[in-house]
């Protein structure tokens, strides 16, 4: 209710101001009757059924509003047109409505139904604009309607509507703060939104409604960091400012060691020391600082999330929007390690080229920064030089910055600059310059004398203001070492004859009084002169005359007794009571009478006590407790709604609160993809790498604990740490994710599904033993049917492909067992494994647990299946066998290179044969199949004019001289894709025509399988952690429950070989990229309930990221 009363106030205010306006404005006619008349004619126009008349009327009304005239009596006439068809009329009616609805609440309700209808419109933009106007109408009665509308819009399909909902939240909050709790719920929901469009607006709403609910940010922190660069610029500012505050509550002070040192070592010295350091090359400095920090002090390790924030905001320093640059600058100032803050200087200096208002704000902030971090701006000293055309307020701020930057090395140039400034015509600026010189003199001892001499010279300046200012500054300087400068004091004593500026006179008198011992002859004389002119002086001067008299009386009573009494008598009858009071007080104190109290004994001590020299310091000192860039900082006073920048916490709060299901944000960002993939790619892999350390660290402890407990199931250990803390919520989001993703991929899925057996055997869910029994029976029939499996995959009976394979391999193993009673390498290897496991468990970040003894049989089956995959890699010549025995290679996917129609009868398909390309091992073999379905024969089939990305190479296939009609032939060519999925473009030529074609490899084809033992695998994996590791959680599709299915799908997706593994919950694969030979290691760890985790370790992060996607796709379908 308080809100509505406020409105009434506002309303009353505006109308009371609005009414007299009529009288003043000649345009309105000045007479009320004519006014009514005119409004009548507007009403008529609004009532007409011609849109053009309505528009004209609305335009005139809006013009009235713009001029601040009251048009509220037209409300009924206007509101009728809210449903007008003409879009411009409609918009202007909205403008009117928003302006006056508050004053005419009852009538405004008439329009509500129109907007409510609009909220249901199928067009997202109409929904959004309806919500926008509805929420802008400040009528308390409709609060419930607004609340409902916002809630609905918050879960709208369209991100634009959701954005509008976010905008509406603060509106509703200001209308009725009691809705806060409900609004927070909506905010929480919208914060989880993954679109850039919404992010800025919802953080804005968050800041206005519930800035204290920092806990809402945890889960969204990483997402916000990653989205930041794509958010619109205004949103960026709000998000960055909010994240600054967030980071202050969640992370440790990165400069904690430095600040300790500073406190211990006593201010100044270390301060300078660190500055010198900063002069050096930036990189060096960074390294040094890091190294030093590492070596000496207790290790500070920056939270990777903290680093993420710093890294993702840095590019925004390049924004064209000054507000964004400033926001990043303040973030760095408040959050970055000292060594890294320097990067912001350049960007801030750039802003100095902007409009003077921007300069004003930036300089204020620079001034504060220069006090804390002087070194940062020293290289840009000259950018702060003052031009005569600058506005005075800019000049004074630049002067402040220059003063702050002054040190022993640059003081001479700065002083030379100051000298020219003193000659300026702008007197305020000159005065400020003199003060600046004074500050330089106090701060830098070496130049004190030079400055003092310069200032003394200024005493003979013709401009009184200059002289006066100099006197004041000299006074302060002299206080530091008076004994050396009695001649200056004498010189100043002479000035009393000329200077009229009271402050300067007062300063001189104080100086003489204070140091009367240095000028014993002159001082009484000055007092004599002053006594003469006492009555005509200003009050501050009078006070100083009394002071001078008192001091002289105490030191030199012989000469000055009478004078003092004279002055005191004059003061006694002064008009100003301060002066009378002072006179009375001093008389009691210094003139010995019989009544004089105990204090008079101490008079000398009172007056002639040694006074500490004044400290000349910047007005910007200590301003940095306000968040830089804020309004409060600018005003140096807390503005309404300012959120304090919290101090760093002593100990970091639990970082795991920010952990989100990893797939969530990687996916979301991948969906946010801008047009160009290339640009975004490093961005993801970066963020991926970022999350690495935390997660792996977590998983380490997890696996350690799991192995301690020795649980046989292993399911616990297989979860990566990232999710484990907050299972519940994440699982929810995960499944949501999954659903969405599935939607996206549905099309592709369908395609693939056609190739796979549609029916699914129930037996898959049944226990392994059962399977085995059955397999033995079915073995025969299966192996028979397998040869034509490809053709009739759809019609295949109850048995799935995987299973048949399974049994196949089983059979194979048994056979092998017969021939060689036991495989020599397998068992010793296993033993080694066990040994090493214990040693490595601390180092190895992968999760595993000691294999329990009853697992002997499963191990065998694994070995067998891995042998199959091994065989695949080896299968060089057994092309006849391969399709029959090894499913993956039989499922070689062929792609169309040239369609029959475009190829004029010649159709060309290609597939990746997965066989080493013998002429060049760095090339991928591509098998090309030509089918001539034309009536005539094709001649001279060859390729030419390959257009390749740099580094790519092609080995052409031999020319096919003749391909008779109806015939099919197959050739092999080699392409070195340079480990990228860039397409190879070339021309396919026949004797008559040329066709442009391109071959693009799936990422899985860019590698060759390698054989590896489990130990080797783990060793290599251990070396490919951090940035090179990508982990994703997934839910296996119901068709690939057992590990054979997994093996099959993975090997189909990528040309990898199976690595033997001691655990039945894990499948491992290894390969090398064809060109560079970088290792590619894939681990699929299954858990209960179809959940699984996929880990890819690859030196080439791009390949890794793409491979993860492909395998995910293969496993989830």
């Amino acid at each position, binding site marked *: 209710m308080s809100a509505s009363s406020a409105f009434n106030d*506002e309303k009353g*205010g505006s109308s009371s*101001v609005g009414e007299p306006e009529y009288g003043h404005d000649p345009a309105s006619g000045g007479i009320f009757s004519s006014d009514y008349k005119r409004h009548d004619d507007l009403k008529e126009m609004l009532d007409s059924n*011609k849109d053009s008349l309505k528009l004209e009327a609305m335009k005139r009304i*809006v013009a009235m509003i*713009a*001029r*601040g005239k009251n048009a509220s009596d037209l409300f009924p006439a206007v509101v009728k047109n809210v449903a007008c068809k003409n*879009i*411009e009329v409609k*918009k*202007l009616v909205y*403008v009117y409505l928003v302006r006056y609805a508050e004053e005419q609440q009852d009538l405004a309700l008439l329009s509500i139904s129109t907007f409510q209808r609009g909220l249901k419109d199928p067009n997202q*933009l109409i929904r959004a604009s309806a919500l926008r106007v509805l929420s802008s109408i400040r009528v308390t009665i409709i609060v419930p309607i607004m609340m409902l509308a916002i809630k609905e819009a918050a879960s709208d399909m369209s*991100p*634009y509507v959701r954005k*509008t909902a976010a*905008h509406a939240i*603060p*509106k509703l909050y200001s209308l009725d703060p009691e809705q806060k709790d409900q609004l927070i719920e909506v905010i929480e929901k919208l914060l989880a939104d993954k679109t850039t*469009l919404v992010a800025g607006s919802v953080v*804005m709403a968050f800041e206005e409604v519930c800035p204290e609910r920092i806990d809402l940010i945890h889960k969204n922190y990483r997402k916000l960091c990653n989205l930041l*660069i794509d958010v*619109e*610029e*205004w949103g960026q*500012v709000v998000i960055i*400012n909010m994240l600054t505050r967030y980071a202050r509550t969640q992370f440790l002070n990165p400069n904690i060691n430095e600040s300790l040192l500073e406190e211990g070592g006593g201010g100044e010295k270390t301060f300078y020391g660190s500055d010198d350091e900063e002069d050096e090359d930036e990189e060096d400095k960074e390294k040094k600082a890091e190294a030093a920090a590492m070596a000496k002090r207790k290790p500070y390790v920056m939270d990777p999330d903290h680093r993420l924030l710093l890294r993702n905001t840095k590019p925004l320093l*390049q924004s*064209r*929007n*000054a*507000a964004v640059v400033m926001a990043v600058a303040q973030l760095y100032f408040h959050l970055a390690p000292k060594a890294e803050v320097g990067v912001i200087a*350049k960007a801030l*200096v*750039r802003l100095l*080229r902007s409009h003077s*208002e*921007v300069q004003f*704000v930036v300089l204020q902030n620079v001034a504060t920064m220069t006090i804390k971090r002087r070194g940062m701006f020293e*290289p840009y000293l000259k*950018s702060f030089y003052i*031009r*005569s*055309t600058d506005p*005075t*307020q800019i000049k004074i701020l630049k002067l402040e910055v220059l003063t702050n930057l002054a040190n022993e090395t640059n003081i001479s140039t700065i002083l030379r600059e100051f000298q020219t400034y003193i*000659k*300026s015509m702008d007197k305020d600026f000159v005065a400020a310059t003199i003060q600046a010189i004074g500050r330089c003199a106090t701060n830098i001892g070496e130049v004190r004398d030079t400055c003092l001499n310069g200032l003394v010279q200024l005493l003979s300046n013709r401009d009184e203001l200059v002289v006066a200012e100099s006197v004041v500054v000299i006074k302060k300087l002299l206080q530091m070492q008076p004994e050396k400068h009695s001649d200056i004091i004498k010189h100043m004593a002479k000035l009393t004859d000329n200077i009229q500026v009271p402050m300067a006179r007062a300063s001189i008198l104080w100086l003489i009084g204070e140091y009367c011992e240095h000028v014993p002859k002159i001082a009484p004389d000055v007092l004599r002169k002053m006594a003469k002119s006492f009555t005509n002086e200003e009050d501050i001067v009078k006070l100083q005359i009394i002071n001078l008299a008192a001091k002289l009386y105490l030191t030199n009573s012989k000469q000055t007794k009478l004078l003092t009494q004279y002055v005191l008598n004059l003061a006694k009858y002064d008009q100003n009571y301060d002066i009378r009071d002072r006179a009375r007080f001093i008389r009691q104190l210094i003139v010995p009478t019989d009544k004089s109290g105990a204090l008079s004994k101490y008079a000398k001590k009172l007056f002639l006590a040694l006074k500490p020299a004044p400290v000349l310091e910047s007005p910007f000192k200590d301003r940095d407790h306000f968040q830089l860039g*804020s309004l*409060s900082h600018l*005003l140096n*006073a807390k*503005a*309404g709604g300012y*959120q304090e920048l919290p101090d760093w916490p002593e100990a970091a709060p639990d970082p795991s609160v920010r952990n989100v299901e990893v797939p969530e944000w990687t996916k979301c960002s991948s969906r946010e993809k*801008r047009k160009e993939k*290339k*640009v975004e790619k490093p*961005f993801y892999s970066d963020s991926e790498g970022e999350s690495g350390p935390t997660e792996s660290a977590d998983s380490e402890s997890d696996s350690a604990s799991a192995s301690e407990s020795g649980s046989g199931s292993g399911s616990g250990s297989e979860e990566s740490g990232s999710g484990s803390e907050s299972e519940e919520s994440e699982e929810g989001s995960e499944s949501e994710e999954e659903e969405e993703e599935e939607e996206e991929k549905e099309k592709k899925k369908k395609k693939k599904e056609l190739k796979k057996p549609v029916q699914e055997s129930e037996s898959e869910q049944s226990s392994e033993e059962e399977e085995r029994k059955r397999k033995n029976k079915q073995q025969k029939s299966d192996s028979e049917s397998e040869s034509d499996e490809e053709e009739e995959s759809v019609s295949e009976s109850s048995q799935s492909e995987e299973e048949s394979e399974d049994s196949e391999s089983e059979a194979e193993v048994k056979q092998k067992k017969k021939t060689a009673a036991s495989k020599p390498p397998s068992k010793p290897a296993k033993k080694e494994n066990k040994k090493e496991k214990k040693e490595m468990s601390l180092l190895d970040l992968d999760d595993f647990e000691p294999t329990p003894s009853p697992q002997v049989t499963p191990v065998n089956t694994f070995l067998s299946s891995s042998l199959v995959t091994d065989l695949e890699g080896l299968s060089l010549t057994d092309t006849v066998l391969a399709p029959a025995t090894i499913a993956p290679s039989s499922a070689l996917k062929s792609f169309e290179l040239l369609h029959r129609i475009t190829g004029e009868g010649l159709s060309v398909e290609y597939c990746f044969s997965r066989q080493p390309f013998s002429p060049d091992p760095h090339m991928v073999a591509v098998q090309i199949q030509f089918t001539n379905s034309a009536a005539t024969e094709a001649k001279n089939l060859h390729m030419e004019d390959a257009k390749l990305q740099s580094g790519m190479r092609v080995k052409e296939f031999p020319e096919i001289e003749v391909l008779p009609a109806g015939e099919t032939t197959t050739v092999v060519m080699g392409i070195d894709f340079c480990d990228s999925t860039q397409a190879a473009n070339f021309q396919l030529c026949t004797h008559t025509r040329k066709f442009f074609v391109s071959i693009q490899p799936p990422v899985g084809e860019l590698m060759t399988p390698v054989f590896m033992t489990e130990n080797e695998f783990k060793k290599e994996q251990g070396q490919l952690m951090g940035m090179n590791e990508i982990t994703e959680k997934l839910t296996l599709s119901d068709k690939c429950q057992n590990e054979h299915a997994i093996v099959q799908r993975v090997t189909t997706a990528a040309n990898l070989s199976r690595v033997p593994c001691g655990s039945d919950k894990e499948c491992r694969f290894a390969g090398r990229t064809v060109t560079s030979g970088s290792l590619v290691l894939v681990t699929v760890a299954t858990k209960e309930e179809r959940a699984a985790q996929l880990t890819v370790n690859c030196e080439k992060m791009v390949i890794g990221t793409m491979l993860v996607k492909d395998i995910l796709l293969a496993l989830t379908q």
Partner: protein
Amino acid sequence: MIHSLFLVNASGDIFLEKHWKSVVSRSVCDYFFEAQERATEPENVPPVIPTPHHYLISVLRHRIYFVAVIQSEVPPLFVIEFLHRVVDTFQDYFGVCTEAAIKDNVVVVYELLEEMLDNGFPLATESNILKELIKPPTILRTMVNTITGSTNVGEQLPTGQLSVVPWRRTGVKYTNNEAYFDVVEEIDAIIDKSGSTITAEIQGVIDACVKLTGMPDLTLSFMNPRLLDDVSFHPCVRFKRWEAERILSFIPPDGNFRLLSYHVSSQNLVAIPVYVKHNITFREGSSQGRFDLTLGPKQTMGKAVESVLVSSQLPRGVLNTNLNPSQGTYTFDPVTKLLTWDVGKINPQKLPSLKGSMSLQAGASKPDENPTINIQFKIQQMAISGLKVNRLDMYGEKYKPFKGIKYMTKAGKFQVRT
């Protein structure tokens, strides 16, 4: 955030007001007027003025104060930057941003402001989106509108806000596809009395005028990208690409926009294209002063220095001047004491000079300050830093665009102290 906006003209009248939240009485501007009175110069009005219940943040452009009323904490630059964006938009729409233009187009102004802010938070500030929503008024369109009764408000809904490239409108079509880039560099310098350079730096911008059909994807590369020390981009530029390859890759907005502004690294010595010989003296006692100024070209790489304009604020003591320019025209305003000399083109064979005497206030002592001389000039077909565009490529569209690149060097804040 932004509560209300008041537009105040030079004489202190509020001629437009717009409120995004509850109405704030215009009496709040009294605090602004107070500050305005206190400031000696119009540009000395503090940009941020606290009042008991509100904060006023203002910018001055084209002799109009744009005063925004704020009620609670908000980054001041946020508001300032937004206000400048508003002015830029007006300028874009009406060609000029004067009181008359705003008053004439008050309805469009209102519609624009309505779209640019929602509840005080910026909504659509990209000129491409705005132009789709509200068509800029042209003479032709005004005429058509009056005849047919059609409107300036676009029938389209703000689809641009939904697109992945919000800065570009969709469905752009041109018969002549052209892309022009202007590389404009400004030299900021302070030259001291003796002619030596105290500080000099080069700031540059690349302004583009792109009229291309469809969704072209452009890349612009430089011969010497290392020259660029500090850059700021239009949001369309892909930052990662620049980081990695030093190539500007972008889908351009339609029409005019500033692609890039940059600062040339300070290690490079800046070539100063003109020199000034000056001799300005006031003699003690006499009421005469001598004024002698000669300009000459220096380090211009053979290009002509054009549109030279010299201005100087003479001391208050100067009553009048009696000068004789060897070329061009000069004016002296005895009230503001501003001397301007429109030189035109510098002919290296015959250097322009301005010589003569100044009459001073009789009896007054000689002014102790010497005036600083501000110089403006232009040099066509040259970027003083030596920056060169290597090539411009277009992807994503089939047609061949017409491409053009123009270089120019200008004086920025170029001052000579005497």
